[in-house]
């Protein structure tokens, strides 16, 4: 199956794929945290609960210690982030193999036209763009080369991908330092970032629409 075919074809989603998508939403939404009593086992569906915490000494400080500075403190701090990163990436790989991305593609493709003004064929690239910037960029170029999107549609799609690129992958991979501190769970934060990405892309969409006449006139000259 070539990439071109993969983009046109509606992917087959098994029940495992939907289950994987559901699990992913639960784990990163932060909805399943802080349950007590009879509902306590539900905490197993929370990402942060599964990552757990480091042991602390009598002063409530973990092995990173207090009042460190500079490169050494940065080094020690990174060590505290690596376990969550290892677990998240391993878990995400399992969900991906279960068909999570295909389920997401089927779920999101119909909304691409209203939210970004791009055709459903961009579904595969859109889903890939959640996790990696490189594959999505290559797919976008291919969509244009195959005549499936116009130059303007590509510009809007690229503007969407460029700001806050790979929101899920980068949230886990780069924002690990802030995740234990922030007041909102990872899921809602990712959602907010996607909303802002869509907002920015639509600014360009409006701009391109407004200037379309003058641009075609210029090209005609």
């Amino acid at each position: 199956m070539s990439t071109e075919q993969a983009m046109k074809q509606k992917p087959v989603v098994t029940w495992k794929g939907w289950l994987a998508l559901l699990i992913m939403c639960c784990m990163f939404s932060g909805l399943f945290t802080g349950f007590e009593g009879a509902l306590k086992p539900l905490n197993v569906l929370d990402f942060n609960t599964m990552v757990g915490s480091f042991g602390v000494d009598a002063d409530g400080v973990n092995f990173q210690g207090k009042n460190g500075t500079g490169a050494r403190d940065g080094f020690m701090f990174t060590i505290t982030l690596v376990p969550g990163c290892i677990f998240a990436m391993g878990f995400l790989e399992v969900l991906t193999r279960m068909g999570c991305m295909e389920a997401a593609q089927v779920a999101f493709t119909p909304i691409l036209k209203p939210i970004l003004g791009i055709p459903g064929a961009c579904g595969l690239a859109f889903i890939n763009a959640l996790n990696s910037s490189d594959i999505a960029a290559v797919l976008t170029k291919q969509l244009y080369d195959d005549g499936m999107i116009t130059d303007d549609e590509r510009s809007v799609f690229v503007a969407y991908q460029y700001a806050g690129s790979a929101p899920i992958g980068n949230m886990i991979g780069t924002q690990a330092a802030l995740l234990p501190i922030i007041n909102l769970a990872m899921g809602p934060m990712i959602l907010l970032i996607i909303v802002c990405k869509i907002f920015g892309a639509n600014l360009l969409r409006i701009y391109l629409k407004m200037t379309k006449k003058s641009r075609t006139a210029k090209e005609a000259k």
Partner: protein
Amino acid sequence: MSTAKTPAAAPAKKENFIDVFFAGARKGLGIGFNTIMPAMVMGYVLVQALKVSGIMDVLATVFAPVMGLFGLPGEAFAVLISAFFAKAAGAAAAANLYTAGVITAPQATILLMPCMLMGTLIGHYARIVLVSEANPKLTPIFFAIPLIDSAVGMIIVRIILTAMGLM
């Protein structure tokens, strides 16, 4: 196994979930040490340099009015500078300011938005805008959009946190 496989992911032999998990986890280990660690050290050294040289105090005074719009102290401008180079460096700078007591947890939450939305703009210009061969005439707009998104994102999070009674 799932029937919906991408060509690249199609395994030659049947893999069990443990192998799949280990493969992903190894990627995570690589990301931790190869991507996050260098950016984190850079972020921490940058903050240290700004602090020791006294530039941080200057930044704090000069950018206080602008950052104030987003409910942040002037020092938070250092986070934006770091984020521009690398998303993880921005996050590191913000975490460092939080540990030092310069910003609060809600302010760190607000800062996560620009760390992502205007993060790694130079590096990703090549990897996304150039690779997709998007219209080069729009370059200034491609750069402006992440900055606008960041401003909007910070305001949205500030409003949400205020509504939650955290700010």
